[in-house]
């Protein structure tokens, strides 16, 4: 099914273009403007050229050191949660009941964490993990594990990671489940006749069919974990020390805390650029993965 070329389609796209341009391009211009200037309050601005960018990429300065450290923490965090959530999500999707009311029940419970406001997710884990009033903290401390996410860096990290696994594994699971559901029964019957093992079925049938949704899952999870802000902010506030300060937290500290507009803007642009590049890589991979289905080509 080839798409027809029709330039009038632009009229249909125009509203979206206007709305998103209003929310994206205008503010981004402000950011670009700020990133080249320095301010000493009173709305006085001074031209600073690429000074902030130089400082940002130089680890020996305060700004550069903070940026690179938080970038490293963020990449590590994204790596860890992808390594946990993707396999776990696949396992959960494969464990879904096949039919009956339990399917709907499982789906609803799985989706529940996704619809909780992010600061409430933080609150839930704060309450759950506190050694004095939280079930988790209380139990851990009583069986002899000294656990306190407020003062211990490792505990803080574990809490933030477990919280993210709790919050987002369902997304991966639901995506994989959608992929699995689209496999016709005939495939399984054929595999049974061939005497394929459980593992062979997974490798040859289920994994290829989940390929596209898994890409979406990895893309969404990478992006969202890369810009995570609210949940760790509520639970640990970026601490203890700076041990769980991710890029977004650092950025908000600089922009809205210190009102260092120039630095914040430069950091924003570099941050955005990283995201844009990663996004482009995924987009290209996804579009190429879709070429075996010509109907989706181009737009998908």
């Amino acid at each position, binding site marked *: 099914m080839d798409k027809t070329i029709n330039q009038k389609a632009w009229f249909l796209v125009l509203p*979206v273009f206007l*709305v998103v341009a209003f*929310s*994206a391009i205008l503010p981004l211009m402000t950011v670009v403007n700020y990133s080249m200037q320095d301010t000493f309050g009173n709305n006085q601005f001074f031209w600073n050229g690429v000074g902030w960018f130089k400082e940002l990429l130089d680890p020996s300065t305060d700004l550069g050191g903070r940026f690179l450290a938080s970038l490293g923490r963020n990449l590590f965090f994204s790596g860890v949660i992808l390594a946990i959530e993707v396999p776990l999500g696949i396992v959960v999707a*494969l*464990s879904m009941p096949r039919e009956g009311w339990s399917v709907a029940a499982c789906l609803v419970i799985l989706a529940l964490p996704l619809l909780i406001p992010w600061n409430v997710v933080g609150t839930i884990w704060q309450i759950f993990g506190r050694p004095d009033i939280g*079930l988790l903290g209380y139990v851990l401390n009583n069986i002899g594990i000294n656990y306190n996410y407020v003062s211990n860096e490792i505990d803080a990290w574990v809490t933030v990671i477990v919280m993210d696994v709790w919050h987002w594994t369902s*997304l991966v699971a639901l995506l994989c489940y959608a992929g699995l559901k689209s496999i016709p029964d005939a495939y399984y019957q054929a595999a049974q006749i061939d005497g394929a093992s459980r593992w062979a079925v997974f490798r040859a049938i289920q994994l290829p069919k989940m390929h596209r949704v898994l890409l979406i899952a990895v893309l969404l999870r990478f992006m969202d974990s890369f*810009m995570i802000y609210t949940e760790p902010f509520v639970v640990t506030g970026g601490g203890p020390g700076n041990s769980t300060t991710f890029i*977004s937290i650092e950025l908000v500290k600089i922009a809205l805390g210190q009102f260092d507009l120039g630095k914040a803007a430069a950091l924003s642009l570099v941050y955005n650029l990283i995201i844009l590049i990663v996004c482009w890589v995924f987009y290209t991979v996804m579009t190429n993965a879709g070429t075996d289905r010509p109907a989706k080509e181009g737009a998908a």
Partner: protein
Amino acid sequence: MHSIPGRRVIMALFLIFLLLPIYWLVNMSFKTNTEIVTTMTLWPHAPTLQHYKRIFTDESWYSGYINSLEYVVLNTIISIAVALPAAYAFSRYRFLGDKHLFFWLLSNRMAPAAVYALPFFNLYSAIGLFDTPWAVALAHCIFNVPLAVWILEGFVSGVPREIDETAFLDGYSFPRFFIKILVPLIASGIGVAAFFCFMFSWVELLLARTLTSVNAKPIAAVMTRTVSAAGMDWGLLAAAGVLTIIPGALVIWFVRNYIARGFALGRV
């Protein structure tokens, strides 16, 4: 063949893992603060509704919920309304710059909210929308419109092109075809897209908090401010948290049959 050995155990363990922290929150919300701080009880021994009562009678609390719902609904309506025609265009036509435009939209879904917090603050203050639900609703469009376009494009592509052609041959004008034929055909897709717009607007805090101060303050911001005033009122915090879960749970129930496909953004 669909599943793996021990699946019931795995599923049960995972669901317990998901529900346990939520249970603890609900548990807390029914306890008095003395019970929370002094004892460790698995269920409320002296159940109380005092926290809920406070939220429903204190205007600064319940207006937070109303404000949140206001901008979430506004945002969902705007997003779906502008995304529908665009989704049709992306699905059916090829036009100058279509791929670039689609990528640009997608990249906005991925843009970190922290980057936009300050510029949005300046922008909406300048045009006099600061501290209104419109500011938050428009700001949330930056990630919800691209998402809605993406989801709806998948669903529109699932409608055979012959249906369009037949309708036009039958003398339907484009707007009439759109409303009378296409929209009913992708009704489930619209439901799913609306669900996602609702979800992402409902859960977002950073922008919502930055763009409001008094009149349009969302419940999430009310929670962060009031609670720290006089020590930690854990019971009240928990009760407010429980109440924020309810709208989401209701919405899931309505779209439960489409959740799986919806999460795949209409692309399975």
